[in-house]
């Protein structure tokens, strides 16, 4: 049953140094507020899983929280590089990190397999790609029925998954709408889960707009819920606020330089009380 905690307490309780953490949200509903809380609490040696590291992992990597990053597309969408990710991989700043890279299809399947309790995901993937040469977690198996050669990757089973959503009700049931990404899969695949929300309402099923197919994660499948208003900025929350595309462009200059980045981190994360963009 979901427990209502402050963001500080949820992160303090569930994100341990060395943990495998998935903060999901495919471009939409990226849990930035939670990511910043992880940075403020100076968590270390994390194995960070995300299909698209995006600015959130660029910030965590630059802040020194990551030991390893597992991902499938590590750019600033429509803008260019993630400079903190690149600086860590190319130059070892602030320290060396390991990377393990997949394709989107494989990672999406791996999250789904994790949610399904399976040890692996099978897909018609990686044909002719050299990614299997550099990622020993990509294997090939023969279909026992047809003999077709298929790719296999291990299921994603994070110690803790963190996602952001529009709202939760008093029973802890969570509503996610718009681009739903792999959020549900991330929550169900994880040993523990934190969901940050824009707001708490009385009863989701009594809301105007509710219909029987609304994507809802039941409260009993979640460990902690924390309110984080505007908690997805500079990404967006469908129905609440748009994507801050200009900030995504500005991030290129902020992240390009170590000093500028460090200053940004001090001003916007370490010295910000709670929620920040």
């Amino acid at each position, binding site marked *: 049953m979901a427990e209502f905690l402050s963001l500080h307490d949820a992160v303090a309780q569930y994100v341990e140094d060395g943990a495998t953490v998935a903060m999901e949200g495919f471009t939409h509903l990226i849990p930035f507020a939670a990511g910043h809380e992880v940075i403020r609490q100076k968590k270390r040696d994390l194995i960070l899983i995300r299909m698209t590291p995006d600015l959130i992992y660029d910030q965590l990597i630059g802040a020194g929280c990551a030991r390893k990053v597992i991902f*499938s597309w590590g750019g600033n969408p429509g803008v260019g590089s993630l400079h903190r990710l690149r600086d860590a991989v190319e130059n070892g700043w602030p320290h060396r990190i390991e990377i393990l890279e997949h394709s989107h299809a494989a990672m999406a399947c791996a999250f789904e397999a994790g949610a399904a309790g399976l040890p692996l995901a099978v897909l018609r993937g990686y044909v*002719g790609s050299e990614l299997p040469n550099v990622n020993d977690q990509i294997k090939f198996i023969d279909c026992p029925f047809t003999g077709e050669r298929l790719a296999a990757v291990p299921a994603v089973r994070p110690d803790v998954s963190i996602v952001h959503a529009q709202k939760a009700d008093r029973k802890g049931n969570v509503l996610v709408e718009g681009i739903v990404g792999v959020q549900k899969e991330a929550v169900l695949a994880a040993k523990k889960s934190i969901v940050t929300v824009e707001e708490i309402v009385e009863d989701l099923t009594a809301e105007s707009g509710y219909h029987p197919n609304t994507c809802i994660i039941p409260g009993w499948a979640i460990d902690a819920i924390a309110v984080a208003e505007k908690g997805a900025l500079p990404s967006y929350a469908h129905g609440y606020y748009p994507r801050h*595309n200009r900030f995504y462009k500005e991030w290129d200059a902020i992240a390009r330089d170590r000093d500028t980045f460090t200053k940004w981190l001090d001003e916007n994360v370490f010295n910000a009380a709670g929620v920040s963009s």
Partner: protein
Amino acid sequence: MSIEYTSAEMMSVTAARALENGMTCFVGIGLPSEAANLARLTHAPDVVLIYESGTLQTKPDVLPLSIGDGELCESALTTVAVPEMFRYWLQGGKVDVGFLGTAQIDRFANLNTTLIGDYQAPKVRLPGGGGAPEIATNAGEVFITLKHSKRAFVKDVDFVTTLGFGRDGKGRDGVPNIGKGPTRVITDLCVMKPDPETKELTVVSLHPGVSREDVIEATGWEIRFTGDLESTPEPSELELKILRELKDRTERQHAGD
């Protein structure tokens, strides 16, 4: 009299024309997205555009900056989870054409979006594969569009992120359940297609005002030209007007957020 247009506009219009009305297209971000939406706003109103964020049959009024902008979801027929997008819609064989960009491409149309240099000590770390490795093999065919330069068009890519026809041109031979692969590459200078036998990219059409030497100069291997080399038709005034309006709307919106 001829109409004024840039080589970038020529590329977008030519790429857009490659899409036929009614096709289902899995769209990559950037130039492919610009071309696909131009097609939808001109000759192909019923083209079905899908993006890897799960947005099915989307009709954005402005071009998305990211693959998952709210605009894509709000203007879509429906939005599905990302695993469903890749498993049912792409792998399930519902996509006619994958429209991709790339950082590097080689003579067998293999794409590199992973890195320049050696994997363990990269000179430049690029974003990685994203959806491309499976789009390129599970879609019926693949269109590729990018700016022509010696840095981008190399004899052999540093890393095959995404299969064209493999390092020897035979990468799809005998593989079951695989698409045709790249059928055309559209640049700001020309259109290329794979040779039917060797699969090596060959120039089939030069854009107006572009010479063979221009293409040779901008290509990192000894590029070949087909015997019946054509001249790419110029953009129409209407195509240019719609493209420019689309780009203006997009710029205004991205600057305002």
